[in-house]
């Protein structure tokens, strides 16, 4: 007894999949949206510093749990099994809305040059740096839709580097907190151009949801006030309200079935009772995040694609990127803490491009409020980490520190990759991923440049002690994971075309950060949402023209 055939099945109800589900159900397609997690609530973990999505020492607040291990390369030929709350796992989340439930909610558009990294800078040796097959201008209308449909507070009037935009943001920007005011004055003295960070968070009531009340903790936590906008409280409820979309939670996709004519027939998955199910559809969209999307493709072997769907040229799972976070910390004589959460308010985009001798850069922002346990590890090099001196330090500087960080653009590396582990399986018997490879040396180099800029900013702001935080050489990924199924014009060196359509499988689409050719010098979520609208729009157009059936 099979499940009722539908027009589209979307795998993953995160930033990309939630948007696609809305686009397709709005266009009249019947949609099944599969999500491996469930609906989550603030009530489960509240604002627990030890169980959230950022600090996970006692567990992940919003999934996944230990039923989904991964394997990571611990050294040459040495593989470790890691759990989702351990370092190296590169977790995002597993719940309706995925990372957008608990993110910091920075709402960046990538800049024009972020889409043309190769033609702007040339590829360094050892990197697969490439231009996107689409331009900023292609994506701009879809960025705008994301800003208005999900909801962004912002104001770019003082940022001369921002790419051209049509409509302004739907909500006014958040004011600077005390850190922001200190840094604003310093940036202006340095001739820089500070501006408020655009946020997927309501500065005023918007879309039937409340305004932010500035709780202390936000990044890593669900919002108790429904003031943070993710797909779980915007586009997914709208998709469900059309009556065309069915959300199935606790559904673990194991395989996309591809027939001998090169068409996707549907998705095999395990339902909430761990029973194997097969949902057939006219078309399939995968939005599992860069790691799980690649895993699902690699696990979908067929006669035409013996190495996994879309993997004819061994590009699936390659070029895993995140961000080489760099920056600096500073200690102040005066109090910088004002408890107006969540704390990250100010940014500069002066160093996103045009840094001499390096490719790309990053937006530099002040950090979210450091929770107490997190702050216990925030120390200048050589400072005592325990004993009486530790306590004295905590007391003296907890309210007198500023941290500036930036998501530094990484150079894609072919061997930073995801493969299917030959032996380890998850609790549903599905082979898990193994992660291997390392960062490009350029990431470390540019990390140093950006850290020096951040330190300069802090010094100008009056920091009495400063030190830099530099990226390590290890594999990148984490919550900003991207790049594993890049889009491109040449089927030999990419996985999908410019619309996220997998080469040679016309009714199989991807819609998440796995498509990113490069990952910009910004937090990626708004770009993922924009790509969701872009891919969804293309599918609906094709559907209306009679395609995919």
């Amino acid at each position, binding site marked *: 007894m099979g499940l009722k055939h539908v027009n589209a099945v979307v795998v993953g109800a995160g930033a990309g999949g939630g948007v696609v589900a809305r686009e397709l159900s709005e266009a009249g397609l019947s949609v099944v949206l599969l999500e491996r997690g469930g609906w989550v*609530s*603030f*009530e489960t973990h*509240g*604002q627990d510093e030890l169980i959230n999505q950022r600090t996970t020492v006692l567990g992940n607040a919003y999934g996944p749990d230990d039923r989904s291990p991964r394997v990571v390369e611990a050294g040459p030929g040495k593989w470790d099994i890691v759990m989702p709350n351990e370092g190296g796992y590169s977790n995002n989340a597993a719940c309706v809305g995925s990372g957008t439930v608990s993110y910091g909610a920075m709402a960046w558009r990538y800049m024009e040059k972020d889409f043309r990294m190769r033609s702007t800078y040339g590829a360094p040796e050892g990197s697969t740096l490439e231009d996107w097959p689409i331009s900023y201008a292609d994506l701009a209308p879809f960025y705008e839709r994301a800003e208005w449909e999900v909801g962004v507070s912002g104001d770019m009037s003082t940022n001369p580097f921002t790419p051209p935009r049509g409509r302004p943001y739907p909500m006014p920007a958040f004011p600077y907190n005390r850190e922001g005011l200190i840094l604003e004055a310093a940036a202006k003295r340095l001739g820089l151009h500070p501006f408020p960070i655009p946020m997927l968070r309501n500065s005023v*009531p918007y879309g*039937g*949801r*409340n305004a932010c*009340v*500035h*709780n202390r903790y936000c990044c890593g936590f669900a919002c*108790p*006030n*429904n003031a943070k906008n993710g797909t779980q409280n915007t586009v997914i409820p709208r998709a469900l309200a059309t009556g065309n979309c069915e959300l199935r939670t606790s559904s673990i996709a194991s395989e996309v079935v591809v027939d001998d004519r090169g068409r996707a027939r549907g998705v095999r998955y395990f339902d909430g009772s761990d029973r194997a199910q097969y949902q057939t559809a006219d078309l399939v969209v995968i939005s599992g995040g860069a790691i799980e999307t690649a895993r699902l493709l690699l696990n979908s072997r067929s006669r035409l694609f013996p190495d996994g769907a879309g993997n004819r040229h061994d590009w699936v799972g390659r070029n895993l990127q995140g961000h080489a976070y760099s920056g600096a910390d500073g200690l102040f004589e005066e109090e910088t803490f*004002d*408890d*107006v*959460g969540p704390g990250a308010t100010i940014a500069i985009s002066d160093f996103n491009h045009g840094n001499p001798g390096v490719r790309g850069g990053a937006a530099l922002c002040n950090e979210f409020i450091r929770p107490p346990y997190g702050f216990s590890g925030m120390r200048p090099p050589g400072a005592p980490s325990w004993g009486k001196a530790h306590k004295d330090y905590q007391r003296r500087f907890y309210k007198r520190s500023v941290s500036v960080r930036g998501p530094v653009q990484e150079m894609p590396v072919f061997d930073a990759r995801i493969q299917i582990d030959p032996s380890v399986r998850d609790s549903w018997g599905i082979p898990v991923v193994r992660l291997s490879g390392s960062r490009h040396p350029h990431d470390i180099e540019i990390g140093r440049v950006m850290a020096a800029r951040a330190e300069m900013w802090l010094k100008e702001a009056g920091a009495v002690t400063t030190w830099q935080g530099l990226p390590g050489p290890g594999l990148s990924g984490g919550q900003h994971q991207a790049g594993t199924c890049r889009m491109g014009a040449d089927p030999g060196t990419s996985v999908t075309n410019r619309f996220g359509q997998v080469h040679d499988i016309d009714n199989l689409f991807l819609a998440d950060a796995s498509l990113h050719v490069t990952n910009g010098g910004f937090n990626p979520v708004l770009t993922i949402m924009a790509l969701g609208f872009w891919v969804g729009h293309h599918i609906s157009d094709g559907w209306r023209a009679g395609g995919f059936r």
Partner: protein
Amino acid sequence: MTPRRWFRLLLGMGLYGGAFLVACAVGGLGYFHFANPRDTCASCHEMTGFYSVWAGSAHRTVSCRACHGGSLTLDVHALESHVDRIVRHFTGDPSKPIHLLEKHVLGLHESCSRCHPQAFADWQASQHSTTYARIFLDPEHNRTASPTNDCLRCHGMFLRDDISLLVARPPDTTGSWMLRDPLRATQPVIPCLACHQIHAPAAAMQAAGFYDHREHAHIPAYLLPLASIRQGERAVKVSRDPRQRVCMQCHAPSAAHQLGTSDDRTPAGVHEGLSCLDCHGAHAHSAAASCNTCHPADSHCGIEVQKMDTTFLSTKSAHNVHTVACLDCHPQGIPARAQLKN
């Protein structure tokens, strides 16, 4: 033996055996019900903390069963949670923290009224006796700001569920907000335990505490933060009365702590530095009669304050009792202190 004799024997064994087992159970539970808690509840290490706090509290002469009911209970939750705890104890699983369910909290709340009828009556007459229906089904409120989990910080703080399991949105634009469980409608959202820690140490000041919904625990008043309130750049003098810290958890300013923002009612102006409790009774909140305590003897301007429009309900009132300052009536400058009318 004949089948009939067999039958009689079995019947007899069943009868006496059954009676014996029932008597054993009743005896055991009865022992648990009536014996000193030190020898019963508190012999499990999960309970020793609660017991020792209770033993040092003002309520130490009130037995466990007076408020919690005893072991001769048919409460399914209690039985289930006790069995669960025993299983966890022997399997070495970490025990879940012990929390009262909301229905138990409301049961306790009723128990309070038996010994503290006056305080209870005062509370009933106050705005703090408000109910789920009044707080969560107000269409005007829900139109401007829909209910969220953060509401539970100050209303219905003993609930353990997501707000969506408490309140249902109107199905369409003409429908009305509904409580998923209609029986909740008349239940109080700020029961005694919201502001009182029944097991608190005997010193009177420490009986006040705030039940922190997020932490699932009472925080005694003296451990609650003394919020800094600012009027522009100026730090407002805030009373150090620890009980006021309980009030400020809910009657709170916006995050930047500016005076009068959000639900802040910290007195400034001529009343700066007073505690909430200087004017408002702890349970009956009406402050109308309290002016007499200080006025006219302590009046700076010598006018009859009872005749002033001292409403706080209108934030526009120039005489808002929480903020009225000399300059509100004397914009040209404050005259020399008026003579007191005796």
